[in-house]
């Protein structure tokens, strides 16, 4: 931004006499260049003599003001080094006739913000699958004003801005196999944006299906009802999926680990139904499903169903947490009758 004032103080208005021995030089036109400086620009005084007149520095004194205060270090100089300036400062230069000390012209500029810059932006990984996130790696930040490093991000799929959140990482779900993803990264200091860089595009490879969402119905089943395992699975590339269902009961594979079992039947997917005759009260059934395309298999999705019939078998195990109120005691579910208890079964690693 530039502000300029041109001040002409004519000596006769102030009642000052002309210089002894003759007339004073007419005032020149005074300009600070560049017109809209930033912190990378030196300030230089440009003087344009009036028409039909010559200009000689010997007859003029030059002085500078910084934010309205005298700046003696720069007085007498026709320039101010860029290193001496900072964003937001107002610099004024004034030219005064040393013939009578009263004719002056001045110009002023305000030091504007310098936009930041960056030197590179690349995508990682360079060969992502459709189920992998993609991240922009950026670097080479420079800001002469010393502003904090910051960027904005736009994501393109096949050259089209997909309106993804302004973030350095793009989560899977908005691209699929064969598409090209790139990003436009713009350095910003909060005031101005620098020149954006568009990354090289990466071509998306086939990805694994998502972990299936698995449910067992009916809710609150008992041992008189068939158990149906339902599976929802998606593939980021829209590939056809093969879903394999497996069942366990009480930790044993079903039906191979369950003597006398009839085995599962099929309602929608192969083996998705456990007939009631293979179930019993107090059993915990788990349905696990894996979805596969031609190349990859998903992580297994699971659901469990406890066939309630009555209280669980009791046990007593020692509390080994030295900071627990029950440390060293034998703890059992019956200790929590009339209360609600939650039992987490894990591995201490």
């Amino acid at each position, binding site marked *: 931004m530039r502000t300029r004032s041109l001040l002409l103080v004519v000596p006769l208005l102030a009642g000052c006499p002309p210089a002894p021995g003759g007339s004073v030089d007419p005032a020149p036109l005074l300009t600070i260049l560049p017109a809209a400086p930033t912190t990378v620009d030196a300030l230089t005084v440009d003087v344009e003599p009036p028409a039909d007149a010559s200009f000689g520095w010997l007859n003029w004194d030059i002085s500078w003001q910084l934010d309205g205060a005298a700046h003696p270090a720069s007085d007498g100089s026709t320039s101010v080094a860029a290193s001496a300036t900072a964003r937001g400062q107002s610099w004024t230069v004034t030219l005064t006739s040393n013939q009578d000390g009263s004719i002056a012209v001045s110009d002023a500029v305000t030091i504007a913000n310098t936009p930041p810059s960056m030197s590179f932006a690349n995508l990682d990984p360079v060969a992502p699958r459709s189920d992998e996130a993609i991240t922009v790696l950026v670097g080479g930040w420079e800001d002469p004003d010393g502003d904090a490093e910051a960027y904005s991000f736009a994501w393109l799929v096949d050259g089209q801005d997909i309106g993804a959140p302004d973030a350095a990482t793009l989560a899977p779900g908005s691209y699929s196999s064969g598409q090209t993803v790139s990003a436009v990264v713009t350095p910003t200091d909060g005031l101005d944006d620098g020149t954006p860089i568009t990354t090289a595009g990466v071509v998306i490879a086939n990805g694994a299906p998502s972990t299936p969402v698995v449910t067992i119905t009916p809710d609150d089943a008992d041992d008189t009802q068939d158990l149906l395992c339902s599976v929802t699975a998606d593939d980021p590339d829209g590939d056809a999926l093969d879903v394999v269902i497996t069942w366990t009961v009480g*930790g044993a594979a079903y039906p191979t680990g369950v003597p006398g079992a009839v085995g599962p039947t099929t309602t929608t997917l192969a083996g998705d139904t456990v007939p009631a005759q293979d179930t019993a009260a107090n059993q*915990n059934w788990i349905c696990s499903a894996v979805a596969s395309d031609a190349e990859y298999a998903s992580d297994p999705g699971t659901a469990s169903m406890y066939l309630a019939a009555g209280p669980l078998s009791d046990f007593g195990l*020692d509390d080994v*947490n030295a*900071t627990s109120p029950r440390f060293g005691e034998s703890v059992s579910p019956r200790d929590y009758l009339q209360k609600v208890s*939650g039992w*987490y*079964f*894990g591995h201490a690693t």
Partner: protein
Amino acid sequence: MQADLDAEFPGVVQILGVNDVGFEGGNATITDGRDLPWLQNTADADLWNAWGVTYRDVWVLDGDNVPVGIFNVTGNNLSDAANYETLRALFVEAMGD
């Protein structure tokens, strides 16, 4: 979650952990900074098979020690607000049984 439930239902819910046989070496680490009971399963109790437990199950029992629900936190990370609320709702449901 224990603190969360205690804040709304003081003294009603107790959460406990049970470590599988063979993982005793990690007990000191997993209990560091925690005061919930941490029980050590034994070959004699064989709780995994006795109850038909799956690794990382949370079994919620009502006041009669009848399971109200089983929530497996593998693939249902409790840092996800929806998963957290699902499990919390099981505890609340168990209070009414």
